[in-house]
């Protein structure tokens, strides 16, 4: 049973990552489709919880060829840019959010769109809680559209990335979602 966001935030930060709902590769292979009819307004969707440490930050810098020192050079970050530590990349969110919503809609759904603001900075070793809550749903052209309020909170509940997203889910017994995805008019 997933722990609601409000309950999660009452935990000791060290205990939070154990409640992450990220599927393992094996769980992906057997993942059951979430259908439009299964979704209720107000429901929370699976949360991804992780403590990104300096190894993760280094790997991300190397993978995307971002050499900016504030992400891996601690003396530079605190003494030149006067930051509290090496920073989690703001643009990392742009990869995390679509992948997370892609996972939730897998295998037959589609992550369509999301937007968010860049707010509080996150430093290495903070907990990041990627969370979402259904705010609206509607069926159109035989497809199920689900709007979500989304964000990435830290262990203290500070929101660093408030935003919105829309995913598309199949209707039970309905047609498959077209691929490539064509947005409704």
């Amino acid at each position, binding site marked *: 049973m997933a722990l609601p966001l409000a309950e999660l935030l009452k935990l000791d*930060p060290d205990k939070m990552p154990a409640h992450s709902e990220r599927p393992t590769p094996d769980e992906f292979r057997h993942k059951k489709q979430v259908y439009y009819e299964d979704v209720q307004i107000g429901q929370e969707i699976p949360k991804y919880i992780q403590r990104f440490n300096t190894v993760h930050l280094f790997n991300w810098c190397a993978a995307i060829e971002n050499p900016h020192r504030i992400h891996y050079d601690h*003396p530079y970050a605190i*003494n*030149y840019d*006067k930051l*509290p530590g090496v920073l989690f990349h703001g643009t990392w969110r742009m990869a995390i959010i679509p992948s997370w919503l892609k996972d939730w809609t897998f295998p037959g759904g589609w992550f369509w769109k999301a937007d968010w603001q860049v707010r*509080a900075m996150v430093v290495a070793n903070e907990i990041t809680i990627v969370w979402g809550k259904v705010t609206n749903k509607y069926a159109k052209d035989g497809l199920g559209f689900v709007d979500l309020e989304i964000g990435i909170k830290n262990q*203290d509940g500070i929101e660093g990335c408030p935003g919105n997203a829309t995913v598309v889910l199949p209707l039970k017994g309905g047609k498959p979602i077209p691929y490539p995805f064509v947005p409704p008019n």
Partner: protein
Amino acid sequence: MARFLAICSQPEMNESKFKEALGGFKKWRPDRWTFVTKAYACADGKIVAECEAREKAHFEQWLMGTGWKVEGIHDVTHIHEAGQIWKM
């Protein structure tokens, strides 16, 4: 923003008390603009703590919460760290 260095003492300092003062984000980063970047606990009971803050008063307030005896707080102008010199 400015950098400050506090010389303090706490004769019965141990790892547990040190963690109590600094372990966890809310402890070393009490608000968005105040962060204790480094602290040294010495065998003779001295503590040296470095803090980035908007005003010295914010660091003083944090120090009061630790229970340490504050001997002095100094404005930092330069830092040397492993061959690099940083001007504050």
